């Protein structure tokens, strides 16, 4: 059996006196396209950079593609990373970057990479500084995919792209996941995009892990319950209440359903991923405000 693409146990990272990430334990299953969501400063970048071996954890353990991050060619060959800044050599052409990838990666797939860039109409002979943001992101993604990693980590790669460039980018990504032995962890704020392309979700908020599960399971497990104004105590006993919205006339509860029964009188409805994520993110914020 091959090792899981990503496993972490009690992972934490402290910068100075503040914890950017704390006590983070999760697994990402094989061949998944996993979304990493969370507000600004939730610890997404910190997590991705530790997984990529660029920074060291303060506490805990992690394994990517069955190996602990290390300055070791075998680990590096298995893990691809695309940083938020989409770093490329500005004065080089895309063609130069292809040669760069070919020289630095033993499993480099030049033909497929060239093909990928041609399909999205990237001029290979033009300097990077003369390309649009979307084109740069495509070059960087092609470079990351070209080394044929087992795990690809992407830090908000579509944040700066227009809808069309975003569609092309995610199209390239999903095609690659379908064709190859690849697992992707992708952070983004664009929940609609993520819901469309991803099958797994990791949710961070304020440096803590809140959810890590299959998206279909998450959606199936969460419901919105509404009723004319009434108490929620009984509900909270049997189910995991995430968010309560109370008006004088009505109370609306978003909850992860437990095994217990639901009292009569609640109107149960399905809920979309976006609403679920917002409920989780909003919850920690209001908690923080309350604790101050």
């Amino acid at each position, binding site marked *: 059996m091959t090792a899981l693409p990503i496993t972490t146990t009690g992972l934490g990272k402290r910068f100075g006196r503040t914890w950017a990430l704390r006590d983070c334990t999760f697994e990402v299953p094989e061949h998944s396209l996993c979304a990493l969501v969370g507000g600004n400063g939730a610890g997404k970048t910190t997590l991705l*950079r530790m997984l*990529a*071996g*660029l*920074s*060291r954890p303060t506490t805990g353990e992690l394994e990517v593609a069955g190996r602990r991050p290390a*300055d*070791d*060619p075998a680990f*590096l*060959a298995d*893990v*691809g*990373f695309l*940083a938020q*800044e989409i*770093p*490329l*050599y*500005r*004065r*080089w052409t895309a063609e*130069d970057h292809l*040669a*760069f*990838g070919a*020289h*630095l*990666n*033993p*499993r480099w797939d030049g033909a497929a990479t060239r093909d990928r860039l041609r399909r999205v109409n990237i001029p290979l002979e033009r300097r990077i500084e003369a390309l649009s943001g979307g084109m740069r992101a495509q070059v960087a993604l092609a*470079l*990351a995919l070209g*080394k044929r990693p087992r795990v690809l980590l992407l830090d908000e790669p579509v944040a700066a792209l227009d809808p069309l460039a975003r569609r092309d980018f995610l199209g390239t990504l999903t095609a690659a996941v379908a064709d190859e032995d690849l697992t992707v962890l992708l952070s983004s704020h664009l929940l609609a995009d993520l819901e469309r392309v991803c099958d797994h979700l990791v949710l961070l908020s304020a440096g803590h892990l809140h959810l890590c599960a299959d998206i279909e399971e998450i959606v199936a497990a969460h419901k919105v319950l509404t009723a004319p104004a009434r108490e929620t105590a009984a509900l909270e006993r049997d189910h995991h209440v995430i968010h309560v919205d109370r008006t004088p006339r009505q109370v609306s509860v978003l909850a992860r359903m437990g095994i217990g029964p639901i009292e009569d009188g609640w109107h149960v409805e399905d809920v979309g991923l976006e609403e679920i994520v917002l409920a989780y993110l909003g919850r920690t914020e209001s908690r923080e405000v309350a604790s101050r």
Partner: protein
Amino acid sequence: MTWVLWRQHRTQVAVLGAILAVFAVLMAITGNQMAHDYEAIRHCGDCRGFGLTRSYNLPRTVVNLSVGVPVLLGVFLGAAMMAREVEQATNVLAWTQSVTRRRWLATKLGTVLLITVAIAGGMAALVTWWSRTMNSLQDYRFEALQFDIQNLSPVAYSLFAVALGFAAAAILRRMLPAVGVTVGGFFAVRLFIELSVRPHYAATRHATFALFAPTVRPRGAWMVGTKLLDGNGDVVRGPLRMPAACRAAVDRLSADQCVSKLGYKVVSSFHPADRYWPFQWIEAGIFVALAALLVAVGAMVVLRRDA
């Protein structure tokens, strides 16, 4: 990795190579001309040198300006090599390919230091060759400025400057502060060694002269300093005040004679010409050792610190 480094540094190499080539042409033309002119006048006695040095003032100034080459290399090769990568985050790109950070750094440092030795060595060879006429005329190559731009020392300074630029950029991670530290640090260390350490590589020799006799500079020596001693052998500090015994002197000449008779004398301290090469080796050794230390510190920071 070699291809990557070539692609990355080829512009720098081309620019530096072009500057070196232009300099080489200038040196070849004026150097040969000067040697030729020198042949024509070398037997005319006292006239030697004066006309020659004056008519080659411009190329000589250019040659002397090569004292700034090390710090330029420190900025454009040393500081730029790390700071530009970190500022554009391309180090993150390089460190997530299948090549270890250690190998990336070793190859990069090796390449940059090799370029440094090539450029600085070429420059020093040209300057040394060009200066051969001046050297045989006046033999000032042991004196401060000439010592710094001929033979080994400029190459060692360049290695030091590049290592300093690299370490500063590795620690500070930004171009401008790294450049500031490179320039400031380089001049501070260079001046300190030149003024306070180099004179003590060996004990100076001394030559004693009568008070009003001309002091003679031994050929090819480095004159470190002169001091005035009174009749008891104590150093006279500040301006010479007329000793009591000579206050009665009626005119300047008799006063001079009176003071001389009291035993006042001038002592010059110098390093003789045959110490030139030992001093070059010591100086180069110190700066190469400093460079090695800085490279080690910078490399440790790059390898240990989170990207």
